[in-house]
């Protein structure tokens, strides 16, 4: 059964997953240590910069404990959402020759397939720009890859897993998101895979905090927009998420969840809204005939929402001063579409833009109310709705700043939609 160079040494691996002929882990003599003495010594040097902060002795101690609990490769974390499946894959780069030899063919082929391609099938995509290199995880150094594909293509994914005999690797597949529950039996029947199901909000928070901690000092994971209310001077700036609590975490996927986070393990879901990324895309498809998020965003970037929306100035001729409403504020989203003439005169691009603005502003105003009710001043927006969607991010930054008179700060994270999957991976490596 030694198909993996790293002997599974963890207590957590389920027995049905590792019908191992070998004796179960021996605490006094962990098998892993014997196999890679060099690696251990080398490890601290090749560690991701972020871990340099920790003293050598602590690191050593941690690595020892890693060794004991380290699961077999491959290391995946999966988040199966309503629209997208997010997959993070850790590619070990510190594989020794010996390991290489021992590495079973199936594992090798999976590694090569994932790392040598950036697109999988028709819809799977690896977000290369998000790849985290030289990351040390559980004492192993390597690259973290970020892959996504539509949830409706999950059957194809499972088929591939079956074709590549993924189940023979007897790995634990940690999965979160609703799909972990919905498709659990499909994983079992179609790919002979047993899922380890995890709560999506737990994973989300864990993922956010982890990625921020390993990335921030390198190239800034977290950022904000400076001068959000001045379009000419609105620029993206890095933000250090030190002392992040309390924090409002707004996850915009198909729907939206808003969490108040007080510490890594102390959070509550304040509320959510069904008007999210799925609504934007769903309405855009109906209104414009487009079929992908990218298409919808592209159209939106070319449209003009003020032709679709009724603005305060359309009703009052200018500002509604009695209530401090500026003339440019939207009074009624899609309000102009009550008139047939105007319906006939708008373009698909205008409609896409109005949809984007409507959904984004609405998320902004619900978030702002939650922040007030929870008395929190920092808001982190994550989720795949924000992927390549600077329009929405700037709108959110603007809305937070303007309506709170500068009290609220909108923060964003580069790895937008992958935190749940990262959290799932972390659960595999450090079961909580």
């Amino acid at each position, binding site marked *: 059964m030694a198909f993996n160079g790293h002997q599974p040494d963890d207590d957590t691996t389920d027995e049905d997953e590792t019908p191992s002929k070998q004796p179960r882990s021996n605490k006094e003599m962990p098998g892993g240590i014997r196999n890679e003495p060099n690696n251990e010594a080398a490890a601290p040097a090749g560690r991701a910069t972020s871990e340099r902060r920790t003293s050598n002795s602590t690191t050593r101690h941690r690595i020892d404990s890693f060794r004991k609990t380290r699961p077999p490769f491959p290391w995946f974390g999966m988040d199966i*959402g*309503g*629209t997208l499946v997010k997959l993070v894959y850790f590619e070990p780069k510190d594989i020794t020759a010996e390991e290489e030899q021992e590495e079973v063919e199936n594992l090798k082929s999976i590694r090569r397939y994932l790392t040598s391609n950036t697109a999988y099938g028709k819809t799977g995509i690896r977000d290369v720009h998000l790849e985290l290199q030289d990351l040390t995880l559980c004492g192993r150094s390597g690259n973290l890859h970020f892959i996504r594909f539509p949830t409706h293509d999950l059957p194809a994914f499972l088929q591939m897993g079956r074709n590549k005999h993924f189940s023979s690797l007897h790995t634990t597949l940690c999965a979160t*998101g*609703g*799909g972990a*529950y*919905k498709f*659990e039996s499909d994983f079992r029947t179609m790919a002979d895979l047993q899922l380890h199901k995890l*709560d999506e*909000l737990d994973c989300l928070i864990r993922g956010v905090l982890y990625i921020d901690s390993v990335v921030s000092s390198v190239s800034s994971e977290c950022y904000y927009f400076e001068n959000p209310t001045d379009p000419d001077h609105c620029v993206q700036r890095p933000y250090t998420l030190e002392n992040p609590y309390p924090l409002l975490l707004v996850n915009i996927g*198909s*729907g939206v969840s808003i969490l108040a986070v007080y510490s890594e393990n102390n959070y509550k*879901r304040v*509320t959510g*809204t*069904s*008007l*999210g*990324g*799925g*609504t934007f*895309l*769903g*309405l*855009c*498809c*109906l*209104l414009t*005939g*487009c*079929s992908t998020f990218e298409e919808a965003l592209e159209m939106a970037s070319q449209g003009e929402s003020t032709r*679709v*929306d*009724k603005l305060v100035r359309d*009703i009052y001729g200018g500002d509604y001063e*009695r*209530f401090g*409403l500026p003339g440019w*504020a*939207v*009074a*009624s*989203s*899609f*309000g*102009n*579409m*009550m008139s*047939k003439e105007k*319906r006939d005169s708008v373009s698909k691009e205008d*409609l896409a833009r109005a949809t984007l603005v*409507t959904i984004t*502003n*609405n998320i902004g*105003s*619900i978030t702002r*109310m939650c922040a*007030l*009710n929870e008395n929190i001043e920092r808001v982190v927006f994550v989720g795949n709705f924000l992927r390549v969607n600077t329009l929405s991010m700037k709108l959110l930054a603007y809305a937070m700043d303007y309506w709170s008179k500068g009290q609220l700060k909108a923060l964003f994270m580069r790895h937008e939609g992958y935190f749940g999957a990262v959290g799932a991976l972390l659960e595999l490596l450090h079961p909580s």
Partner: protein
Amino acid sequence: MAEFSRVDSSSSSHTMDKSITLPPDEIFRNLENAKRFAIDIGGSLTKLAYYSTVQHKVAKVRSFDHSAKEAPSDKLYEISVQEEVTARLHFIKFENAYIETCLDFIKDHLVNTETKVIKATGGGAHKFKELIERKLGLKVDKEDEMTCLIKGCNFVLRNIPHEAFVYAKHADSEFRFQTTHPDIFPYLLVNIGSGVSIVKVESEDKFERIGGSSIGGGTFWGLGALLTKTKRFDELLQLASKGQHTSVDMLVKDIYGGSYGSLGLTGDLIASSFGKSATADKEFSKEDMAKSLLHMISNDIGQLACLYAKLHNLSRVYFGGFFIRGHPVTMHTITYSINFFTKGEVQALFLRHEGYLGAIGAFLKGAEEDNPNQYSWGENYAGSSGLMSVSPDMYPMQRARSGTFDMLEMDRLERQLVNLPLLQDASSYIPDTVDLTEDAQAREYWLYCFEEALDGVVKRAVASQPDMPEAAERAEKFRQKYRHKLQTLRHQPFAYGSLTVRSLLDTREHCLNEFNFPDPYSKIKQRENDIALKYYQKAVKSMEKLSWEERQFALVRGVLAGNVFDWGAKAVSDVLESDPEFGFEEAKHQLEERPWLVDSYDQWLERLKGPPHKCALFFVDNSGVDIILGVMPFVRELLSRGTEVVLASNSGPALNDVTNGELQILTERIAAMDPVIQDGLKEDRLTLVQSGSSSPCLDLSRLDKVLAMVVRERQTDLVIIEGMGRAIHTNYYAMLSCESLKMAVIKNSWLADRLGGKLFSVVFKYEVPADKADEDSALLTPS
């Protein structure tokens, strides 16, 4: 019971009142006396408001000069019908399409107005400004929309009991009306027009727009039109009511396969609105998309409203605007959303006259010099259309308002009405004992009862005006109007708020007044008073012969026997009509023997052995035997004990109830015969006040301000309420902060049956509030 109501509601949907198209002369009533105008032009409906005076006949009584020996007849007093001018507010709602026709009509009929301006509000006001100025020759003076809205809202909340309601789609009665709290502030008004405004109202003049949303009615309409190619708002709602949102929305179970248990999110919750339509290769039905859109918008508004309510710590949230306006579909989705987001802590409240708020507010802005807020106003049931909507899920198009005119009329009440200061908890006081909106069986009975009695009322009305040849014609019009009201109420019991025996009686009085039958019972009352007075001294003498304890019981029996004389009760009026000699003694024989159905006489007697009350407030009932031979001897005894007495009688006529005017004359006549009464009046220990009401029932939260003042000044410690209308149909469960005595004879066999008694069963309910009872026992305990 549930079965009954189901049968009832399903049958009603077929015969449902589809429209209230009225001939124009009934729409713009009293236009010739219109003084002041306001107009609220919305996206599709125009609301016109005007203030007018109504001249109608009132019955006045005047005492003959008895010092002059040559009285023209042996009658006690004379009845004259006089013209009286009262103020009335008219509100009419019609489709914008009719605006020109309506303006023409107004122009042609406007006679006496000195008005130079018309107050205008609403989004459409500027569009029609020129037209209005040209047609009416009035200058259009624009008022801020939100200010008008809030002003109007305050006005209806203050003046119309049962203005606000919660909506429950699947309940026995869809509309559950709320009792108006005396203190209406603070509240949140969520106005859903094309966008949403969320306004916090803290007092009459202090309000603030604390937030809003651009996702509102305009989004539903605009986006709905794009998605479904359906142009009209009503049609979109109709589509929505037939659709299945689950084919378009991504539900929690679509993502999870079931519920998201750890968060308590059930599988049927919407995770992503329109989440399933993110595909190019699937067609969705118009109905399903409209439904999904409706849910999306309603949930969003509900969520924001809850967040604002929470932030500002407000629990009363009213919803209005064209998105809501009487549409059960949207009221249902908003209610659902509020329940979901607040877990039932906040109720979504809706308003019966929501559509009129802007017009009312604009009018009030223009009438500030007359200070309409210093008066109390009452909804005139005869002239108001009532709440229209019913079962829209089944027949939404029948509600199409095309060509229909909706009306609201409010009468300025002569007196300012306030709470009785002796109510234990004014905010939870509900006058009516049975809510017929919720009790289908009782509703059936009473509607039938009132319809049965209609012939008699018409006959009586005609007979009351023998020298007016057109009385018969008017009476016939009255019959039609009231019958129509009853039919409307059969199908829409919620039309005027909670349906109660009181509202049915009041509606009848309003209709009678409308056709100039101010007091059909005036002559009967006069005759009965005459006869009864002749027996007064004899009755008092017979009491004096009795021992103290015998007398106390005889006095109570006297009040009860007197109360059998009641033209309002069919069982009695039949006997009275066929046998006018039906006497006081006979009435006593009819009375149930003790123990009565409700009997706390022993406690009352014990109490009488104690110290006298400081002051008793007595709400009296009928004329004739009741007041003269029943109540007056009882009052006399109270006075003799050293208790001051305040006699509260109706301000205006209702059935054969004694009015304040009549009671004044009667008391004078009795005083002339009885030194105890005489001294009482002279020494101001016996006072007559008017109740402020013209109803056979009694609403203790709407009483004449003067009465409230007298009650307070005299430190009233006993309230006596007499008669079926005041002590059983209303106030049976009223909790007072002082001792109270409710006395009535049940003269209706159905009601007797319901209460577990029989015809002429007696209710004698003496109550002492809990804290007072402790005090008394403490006093009685020797220290």
